[in-house]
């Protein structure tokens, strides 16, 4: 018999980790051609570690895919290439610029125009081109209200659309992975994680993140409630503040035209956790300018195929 006392207690993070590993392996085993979406953001960096735990010493049973808006922070792209090189796994880059050049999408101009929404088309095209039937992403239910109802395996029809009223019930940890050709799923192993859980896991595992997650001096300006980077990719609007230099960090990486910074002096993971525990704003509200169009903005984009 086993002496239960010698075995450490199951903690909250280890439960979340086990659940995520289980999802990764189910997707790898039951779909023909899965892919892991890798943005070099903190959530996808956590996904890579979970994939290592699920599949090492073997290779990942899926390639990595980055949807590149062309408006990314240089340090994030450099970080992405270094991490993927060290892992020795395959990376596919799908460029929004290529979709624009091919006439698949038209660049948005003027107020609120960004490439963030164009990503959906580039993503769907990449899934179709490579025949991917499952795309694993780092989205979490705590990010936004309509995400709170997202399944761990979220079913998309052949147009990549999400029908929130016809979701498959998800019982126990038994996932229904049966799809027709052309249909696909989005898989979210981090569904039950909060932003704080992600940071605590990064701390526990000693994961390295792109430098923009920590305090640095940057040329920024204010647009409404948002602090945006001074960049040639951003068309300035009346009402924007003058450019100044400030101590900022980012809570998400993404298209720099819509990813807002926060004023912060957090230098380490521990500082960030400390800051988060006292945070006043949820992640998306301050840092994703385009979600604020309406409170149903993300739900609409998800229906269109956005991640």
């Amino acid at each position, binding site marked *: 018999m086993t002496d239960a006392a010698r075995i450490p207690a199951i903690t909250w993070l280890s439960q979340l980790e086990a659940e995520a590993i289980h999802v990764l392996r189910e997707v790898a085993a039951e779909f023909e051609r899965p892919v892991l979406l890798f943005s070099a953001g903190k959530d996808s960096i956590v996904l890579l570690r979970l994939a290592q735990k699920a599949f090492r010493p073997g290779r990942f049973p899926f390639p990595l895919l980055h949807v590149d808006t062309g408006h990314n922070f240089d340090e994030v792209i450099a970080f992405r290439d270094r991490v993927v090189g060290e892992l020795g796994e395959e990376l596919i880059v799908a460029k929004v610029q290529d979709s624009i050049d091919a006439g698949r999408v038209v660049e948005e101009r003027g107020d609120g125009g960004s490439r963030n929404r164009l990503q959906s088309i580039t993503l769907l095209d990449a899934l179709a081109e490579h025949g991917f039937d499952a795309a694993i992403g780092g989205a979490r239910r705590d990010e936004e209200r309509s995400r709170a109802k997202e399944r761990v395996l979220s079913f998309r029809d052949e147009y990549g659309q999400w029908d*929130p009223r016809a979701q498959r019930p998800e019982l126990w940890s038994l996932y229904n992975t049966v799809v027709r050709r052309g249909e696909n799923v989005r898989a979210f192993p981090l569904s039950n994680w909060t932003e704080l859980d992600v940071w605590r896991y990064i701390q526990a595992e000693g994961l390295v993140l792109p430098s923009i997650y920590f305090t640095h001096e940057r040329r920024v300006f204010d647009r409404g409630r948002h602090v945006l980077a001074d960049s040639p990719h951003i068309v300035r609007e009346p009402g924007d503040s003058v450019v100044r230099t400030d101590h900022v960090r980012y809570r998400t990486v993404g298209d720099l035209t819509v990813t807002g910074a926060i004023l912060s002096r957090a230098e380490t993971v521990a500082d960030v956790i400390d800051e988060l525990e006292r945070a006043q704003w949820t992640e998306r509200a301050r840092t994703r300018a385009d979600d604020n169009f309406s409170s149903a903005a993300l739900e609409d984009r998800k229906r269109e195929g956005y991640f």
Partner: protein
Amino acid sequence: MSAVPPHEQDLLRVAVGGSVDHGKSSLIGRLLLDAEALKGDQLDEVKRGELSHVTDGLRAEREQGITIDVAYRYFSTPRRGFVIADTPGHTRYTRNMVTGASTADLLLLVVDARPPGLTEQSLRHVQLAHLLGIDHLVVAVNKIELVDYEPEAVTAIQHEIAATARRLGLTQATVVPVSALEGDNVVTRSTRTPWYQGPPLLQVLEDAVPRSAAEYSPLRFPVQWIVRDGAYRGLAGQVSGGYLNTGDEVTVLPSGERSRIARIDSFDGPVDHVRGPLSGTVILEDNLDVARGDVLVSTDGAPQPAREVDATLVWLGSESLTPGRRYLLKHLTRRVRATAASLRSVYDVYDDEKGDASELALNEVGEVTLRLATPIVADPYARNRTTGAFILIDELSHDTVAAGLVRETRAQIGSDEEQKSPDVVWHPGKLDRTERWQHLHAKGATVWLTGLPASGKSTISTALEQALVHRGRLAYLLDGDNVRHGLSGDLGFDAASRAENVRRVAHVARFFADAGGIAVVALVSPFAQDRDLARRLHEKAGLPFIEVFVDTPLEECARRDPKGLYARAKAGRLSGLTGEQNPYEPPPAPEVTIKTLEEPVTDAVERLMALLGVVG
């Protein structure tokens, strides 16, 4: 409320249920708000509108003011993390209650303090949660500000809850009077309810003991993934019962082979033990052929792999279950075909037994027997919530149509393939088989030809029948079309009817072979499970059974099409044609395979004759 160091904090999963308009979503909003889990922007929304807007995430829900889908919310206190599944109150969304409850440790039931208090729908939620193995109930009697903070309503509900808890055998039922609107007794004790002596709701949730993770069960380790790297071959999975211990003897099911755990690997190096629900990668001492879907179990208390399962189903599909229908069954890491062999009883939403158990409809609960094409390694749900659970998937729509709970398993398909009438006993004749066959110079057998429509079964079988009779053997052809003229004239072409047709023909063939004849059966018989039944029937009777796969590509069958079936199906005038609209399962290990594009009929017939011991 003392702080617990992070490495000791655990996670509590709470399903929230209750009737429409009793304030479930508002109470969750209040709980999150007062636990200071809500961040600034959500607070803005709350101030702009309703508390429930925090959880009602979809636009249709906000427009209609109701909750449609399960919403998951997260917050933590210094004691533990919480996963809250807010489940819709409407009867037609019962399936979401089941979804939320399937993973929950406890049920938080929200009940309006005003009459009628506990409704049938709230009791239904308690019943469903109990069915799914939740025996810890916390009742928040909400809107006490509307009964002027008086104790009478709460006391009445408390009595009713106590009675329900006794009836169901719940281990714990706690009642807390709260006001979601005002915040009374949610996070802190209210001064307006001096008659209530218990802790506030949040503390009740913090003190709750999570359901144990089947630690005291014998080992159950479903193999989820084979990790390969050169010669390295690790069996990766999540512990679903008991412990993995280095050095322990294990049995691999369903094969039954034994080995020992040589090592348990993790990304951070080898470990000595792993407990559920954590995951590990096992290296066995012996190089056994283990695949995804197999289960490692402790050799003591190893269950029998099950081919037949008695189960409770909560039906979630819009199309009803009827006996005879086939589904895909997902259990642990295995997906198998299952047939609903019988439906014994059906209960409606309010737990009343329905007299008519001919079908199981949306939101109903039924007791069924399922027959599986491939065995699963299961425990009763009452003993293990992971190895005892499964889902059914509709083969055509791909929808998840049922939540299944294993009650009892059997290693063999039940004896009702014999379907004896209860008061009839088999009447033994004066002759035994050997004597009969010797005197008749006969040797009985059944040759069973299976294949797509127009694959060539009839051509081969008529030639075989003729050749056998010409050589003085008593052979008789049981042709699929012919049996449908009389013996099976009452049957259709759905899966259940096809199964019944195969069963009847199998019994007739067995009688004939027992008599010393050679029964030549030419039947599409598309399902492996049905053919297996015919085979078992013969094997049990000690009679030879030769399965012949007439292997002709679908395109060729459609080209030949002597009866015009494919043409009619193509024109939409015939539905359910095997190969076109309905699946055909080729036999995995037939005694004989005839590729009609390559082998002339005469050669095929000679091969079969040789196999039957009939020469020249």
